[in-house]
């Protein structure tokens, strides 16, 4: 089964546009699911969002030179709000 690349691009665009602080992340270390707005935020070389329960690094954000790197070192699932289909 093949999936149209444009459809995948639309899904990714939709997923990232819905991922604000109301997005719910599941911690891969302790399993807690919490809104990303409750994450502990640290400013290192980039920004690190950590689980409010166990301090596992969930998401990293680095923005520079017209690029953004979003890493998921410890968030196994993100629930984001999208339109109904």
């Amino acid at each position, binding site marked *: 089964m093949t999936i149209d690349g444009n459809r995948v691009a639309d899904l990714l665009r939709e997923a990232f546009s819905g991922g604000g*602080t109301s997005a719910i992340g599941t911690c891969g270390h302790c399993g807690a699911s919490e809104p990303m*707005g*409750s*994450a*502990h*935020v*640290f*400013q*290192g*070389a*980039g*920004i*690190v969002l*950590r689980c409010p329960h166990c*301090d596992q*690094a969930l998401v*990293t954000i*680095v923005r*520079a*030179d017209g*690029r953004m*790197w979003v*890493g998921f*070192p410890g968030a196994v699932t993100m629930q984001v709000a999208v339109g109904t289909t």
Partner: protein
Amino acid sequence: MSIISRGFGGRRPDAPADRVPPGQYVTRDYPVLSAGPTPHTPLDQWDLSIVGELDEPRRWTWEEFQALPNEEITRDIHCVTKWSKLDTIWRGVSVDTLLDGVETSAEYVVQYSDGGYTTNLPLEDLTDGKAWVVYEYDGSPLPSAHGGPARMLVPHLYFWKSAKWVRGLRLQLIDEPGFWEVNGYHNYGDPWREQRYWGD
């Protein structure tokens, strides 16, 4: 959601140009940047290890580590967030001392720390007087906010390559990008070539 960090300040515009890499400014402050909460490992539970590609792993307790030959080191440091601090004074143990007599075929090292932070670099960037594990800053025990009780000092690379709260060095046959290196930052991090991000 609040950012847990201190502010910046104290810019000094009159720094000698040959000591300030491109894109950097000099500060008299010592900004605190941290990818996570400050660990507070009691010294009686602290140790430092060399593991990986060597016949026998090496390990020092805090007391054993303190008894190793140490030296005062004065170097400029450069953070990828664009501040540089000149003539910082440290005391610590050369990585050459830690690796003395070690035979290894490893070409790469991963520094690992309390809290899970890692950063990678070639082994040759830690030897021949280029890197230390330091435990004093400016004549006092290294504050935990700055990586105490002990941190890496690899001053010829951007400072994210000097792991705070270091607990060991893992000697490796293959390069393994660390915490920031997999998330946008340059794999090597030479400040004089402004190697900040992927592709720089």
